[in-house]
């Protein structure tokens, strides 16, 4: 049940990010001036028939956020009571702390009239919360605990592909950075600073510059960088680990989400930031991030101890115990 619940929490976090994207995309962030109340009502007592105009998006975001917050509380307690791995329990505590901080940031940004720095921090921390809930869902899953040992063929060259390890980490970090740049672009009103696509004012590089154009262009350069890194990561997986479904599947998904993300980004500009397209671009960006994160964690699976493994702490030994074909290529420490 715990893996299923953790997956539900991760999915609900994606819904929350979409709801948050709708708030910004519709310019509804200040349509409810007070916090944590809504026009003086306790949040859950606010009449549904009063959810009109921008209130619909802002109040909906608050309802979804408090639901996700509650789910993460339950998840943290569940992990605390039932999870044998200390580092997974700690992930639950960190997720709980992150979602509390996220709620406070959301309140502060309303009460302080959406200062850019706080709004950007709120958007950026949302991605961290999603990464945490996704990681918890992944590491409590049956596949992770079994270390996917049923998946490789007997002749597979198992884990410790250091090139892939490095590319995958770099890709995930760069994707996160790109999302932070995107959040900066959104919250500083630079989303249409370059009004055409794929060119910039008809040129490859903008002929005019100001702060907003620079932020917008940085997001486009970031998109190109992310594209190259994802192609490199996925290409490496397909070429060297095509038989490992636990890597091939997220790599394939990553390519699909990347194509969708570029399309949504282009449409966001060309549609003058139509709010549904804009919000889908936000949540799909988050999905690109966590898919890359899942791939990265699976690539690094050997560094983590198996749950219930007879082997002592030390993933290489534990993994080797379960996979006779695997010869550790390094002696990096594993998580206990």
């Amino acid at each position, binding site marked *: 049940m715990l893996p299923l619940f953790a997956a539900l929490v991760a999915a609900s976090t994606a819904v929350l990010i979409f709801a948050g994207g709708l708030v910004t995309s519709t310019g509804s962030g200040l349509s409810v001036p007070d916090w944590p109340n809504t026009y003086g009502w306790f949040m859950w007592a606010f009449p549904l028939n*009063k959810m009109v105009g921008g209130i619909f998006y802002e109040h909906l975001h608050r309802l979804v956020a408090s639901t996700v917050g509650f789910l993460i509380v339950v998840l943290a307690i569940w992990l605390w009571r039932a999870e044998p791995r200390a580092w997974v329990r700690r992930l639950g505590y960190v997720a709980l702390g992150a979602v509390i901080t996220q709620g406070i940031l959301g309140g502060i940004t309303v009460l302080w*009239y959406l200062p850019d720095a706080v709004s950007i921090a709120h958007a950026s921390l949302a991605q961290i919360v999603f990464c945490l809930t996704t990681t918890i869902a992944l590491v409590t899953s049956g596949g992770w605990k079994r270390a996917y040992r049923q998946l490789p063929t007997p002749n597979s060259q198992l884990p410790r592909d250091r090139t892939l390890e490095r590319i995958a980490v770099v890709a995930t970090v760069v994707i996160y950075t790109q999302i932070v740049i995107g959040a900066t672009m959104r919250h500083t009103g630079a989303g249409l600073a370059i009004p055409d696509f794929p060119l910039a004012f008809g040129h490859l590089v903008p002929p005019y510059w100001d702060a907003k154009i620079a932020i917008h262009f940085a997001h486009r350069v970031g998109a190109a960088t992310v594209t190259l890194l994802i192609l490199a990561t996925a290409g490496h997986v397909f070429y060297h680990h095509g038989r490992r479904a636990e890597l091939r599947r997220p790599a394939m998904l990553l390519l699909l989400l990347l194509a969708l993300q570029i399309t949504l980004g282009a449409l966001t500009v060309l549609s003058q930031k139509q709010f549904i397209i804009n919000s889908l671009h936000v949540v799909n960006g988050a999905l690109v991030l966590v898919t890359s994160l899942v791939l990265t964690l699976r690539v690094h699976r050997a560094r983590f101890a198996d749950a219930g493994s007879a082997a002592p702490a030390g993933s290489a030994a534990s993994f080797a115990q379960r996979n006779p074909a695997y010869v550790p290529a390094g002696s990096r420490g594993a998580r206990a």
Partner: protein
Amino acid sequence: MTRFLPAACAAALLIAACGGGTNQNQNQPAPAPAAAPAPTGIDAATAGTVTGKVTFTGTAPAPQPIKLSSDPYCEKANPSLATETAVVGSDGAIGNVFVYVKDGLGDRTFAAPSAPVVLDQKGCHYTPHVLGIQVGQPLQIVNSDDTLHNVHGLPKSNREFNQGQPIQGMKMTHTFSTKEVMIPFKCDVHGWMNAWIGVLDHPFYAVTSTDGTFSLKGLPPGTYTIEAWHEKLGTQTQTVTIGEKETKDVAFTFKA
């Protein structure tokens, strides 16, 4: 780490559950209207007037109907609501232009009237769309609609504020501490609702009606810079000199 979990959970639940159940009802009685204090350093016997008309050449943008479906009340209360960006009358006369003395009053000081200026939210739009007020003069904001509004002032020199008015008949009063032309107002609930307020440290301002005319009365003899401001068409300035009891006419013409 473990021992902090119950406390963290309690904090999370507290954040989710805190808050009272009271409404932000700030029904405040309107201040009693009172006459504006006489300005200092001005002899009413010699004061003159600047009058004029603001016109528009070119094709005036037609008012665009506003989609009100996000709030059923607005859809029912004011189904024909349209944009108020350019209110153009006959012969190119244009309304909602804020005309004021930008410069020329020297060191004279003017006490703020105690009578409030009223900004009403009625039919899901602001009435009036453009208005003027003096520093320290109360601005009374009223919600005449049976729906929720938030009043969000976005000044650059004054303090930003955002106040909810969820109940019909609610009133709030706000004052500005420094002059600022112009301060945008918006309702984030109804994205189409906006208004503009010019805050001055003197009483010499006017907003044109659809006939485009304005009048700045009680000006002491002198040379003044008069500015006309329009939310889309920008600003124009003219210099005018008036003598004792003199009335001077000034015309502003905006182009599309």
